[in-house]
């Protein structure tokens, strides 16, 4: 197992390295000139060139990549005179559009996105798995039909529509909830909760449908497995049978999917964050797209990639714990 973890972590690091160099390369190959973007309408070529040098875009690709990586570990200063800006390690660049170090911009979004992701994840896993289990165990009865309704809603309604609808119903028409405005959990837990409850529910409804289906189908499939019949033939109580035999087997593959889905969510729920006006990673990314803010885009892409690569590694290692058959290979 130790070997397994070491090997998996090693691959994750290699992968991150490849992803980072690739991301960097893609953005440097884009037609948009990051130096030209720093310049207003009254722009002179000299200003563009000066800013190019200041931000290091005049250097060859590998050197730019090198300085970027170095910045992550030791920090970086942009510009040499007194008007220069220092971004402390881990520096992910400087956004000339927002006049802030990218790291601090990204860092501010992480608690928001993490709050969204965590709450939504807990909700959707809970409802997805419990409704999926109910649906499978009461096949053809009402829980099964309810889960069908969920699935239809989840599949046919885009998150934008569902988000807007929930705002209309709960905020604008009935005023049950205030308009979502993010506040840190340490600052005001109640406000934090009221701001996040709608986005959680919207994301949960959307994703729960997938998990209901996965759980239901997984359970039905496992129920037909010979070892479950043997479990019954052994005289296992129903509860033990469901938990130890059926769920254990049915949920193990779902854990993998859930881990990756969670990582994607950590990368920012773009639509949901936009509709509910939550200043998370997704919203930062989409704003950077609109403003062609390349330093932010590079950083958010890298951060999302890190989440996904790390989640993949964790899920793989976890899977090794969950399924003895994987561990052996």
């Amino acid at each position, binding site marked *: 197992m130790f070997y397994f973890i070491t090997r998996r972590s090693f691959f994750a690091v290699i992968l991150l390295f490849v992803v980072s160099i690739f991301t960097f390369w893609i953005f440097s190959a884009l037609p948009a000139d990051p130096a030209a973007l720093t310049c207003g309408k009254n722009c002179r070529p000299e200003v563009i060139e000066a800013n190019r040098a200041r931000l290091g875009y005049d250097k060859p690709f590998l050197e730019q990549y090198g300085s970027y990586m170095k910045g992550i570990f030791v920090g970086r200063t942009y510009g040499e005179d007194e008007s220069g800006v220092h971004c402390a390690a881990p520096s992910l660049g400087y956004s000339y559009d927002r006049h802030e170090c990218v790291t601090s911009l990204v860092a501010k979004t992480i608690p928001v996105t993490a709050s969204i992701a965590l709450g939504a994840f807990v909700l959707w896993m809970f409802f997805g798995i419990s409704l999926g289990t109910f649906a499978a165990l009461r096949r053809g009865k009402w829980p099964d039909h309810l889960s069908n309704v969920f699935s239809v809603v989840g599949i046919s309604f885009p998150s934008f529509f569902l988000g807007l609808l929930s705002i209309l119903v709960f905020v604008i028409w009935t005023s049950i909830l205030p308009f979502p405005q993010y506040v840190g959990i340490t600052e005001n837990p109640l406000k934090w909760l009221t701001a996040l409850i709608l986005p959680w529910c919207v994301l949960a409804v959307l994703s729960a449908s997938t998990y209901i289906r996965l759980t239901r189908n997984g359970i039905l499939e496992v129920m037909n497995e010979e070892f479950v019949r043997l479990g019954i*033939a052994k*005289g296992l109580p129903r509860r033990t049978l469901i938990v*130890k035999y059926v769920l254990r087997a049915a949920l193990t593959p779902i854990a993998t999917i859930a881990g990756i889905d969670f990582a994607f969510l950590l990368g920012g729920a773009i639509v949901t964050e936009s509709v509910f006006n939550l200043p998370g990673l997704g919203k930062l990314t989409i704003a950077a797209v609109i403003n062609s803010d390349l330093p932010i885009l590079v950083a958010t892409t890298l951060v999302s990639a890190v989440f996904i690569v790390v989640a993949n590694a964790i899920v793989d290692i976890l899977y090794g714990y*969950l399924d*003895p058959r994987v561990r*052996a290979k």
Partner: protein
Amino acid sequence: MTEPLLSVRDLHVSFGTSEGVVQAVRGVSFDISQGETLAIVGESGSGKSVTASAIMRLNFGADVRVSGSASLDGQDILSMSEEGVRQLRGKDIAMIFQDPLTALNPFYTVGNQIAEAYAIHHPGTSKKDLRELALDSITKVGIPEPLKRLNQYPHEFSGGMRQRIVIAMALINSPKLLIADEPTTALDVTVQAQILELISAMQEAHGSAVILITHDLGVVAEVTKRVLVMYAGRLVETASVEDAFNSPTHPYTRGLLNSVRSLDSDRHSRLEPIPGNPPSLIDLPSGCPFHLRCQYAASLNDRCRSEVPELKAVGNSWSACHLTVEELSSDLRAAT
């Protein structure tokens, strides 16, 4: 004769499917005494496995209908509460499945699963005792290095070894009745004999009665004394193994014997498969279910097409056929 251990009467099992009702078992009755070994043979779809499952109430699904009775020590399993059946399963009646590769839970060690089989019916047993018991049981079924193997997962074992584990698990509570549903079908030929021997040996050690479900007449000859032949959900013949092999009283039994090479038969004897296919269990033919494939039916009157034959004594055997003993005997002798 002592009171039978298990007494099955007029067992019917049907399943509702989208295409119609599958009448898998239709009016099967038989007894098995303590310590006895009984084989149920038939082609696939004959209802033998469904019969075995019905005894443990392992037929699931929304549209399963089971009627009749199956009394173990005078208690009808089919009318018992769910909890009652549960306590019976694995303790009084245990089962060995066809495919040992899929029968074990891949997520737990074999030691855990064997111990669990005991712990279910003996709550409060200490972990240490459970471990001792599990160790003892896999040692008895002949697994080398049992101490090490106890902590391994099913995928780390070969098929034969896994079937040994299933057997160990089935016998850990010394059940009164052991149902072995095609226990060797999925295994290598070389391992089959070992497993059958093991079942026999364990049966003797625990004094359990055994119902062996198989389509393999060779297996029947190896281990059992009495045989039930099923066809299209019905019992068509019950006989001692000797009678069944030497003087089969039902045309189907005869056809079955001709279609397989028994273990001790001459290698060069010609195989004669039964012509045609078993009937659809959704749309059963009228009269004798076998009449469409029966070489004697044509020579008979319309009874085979219109009337379902009942089991009746034919010599030492019981057979469900409209043919008279004489007609059958002469023809059979000529054929064999």
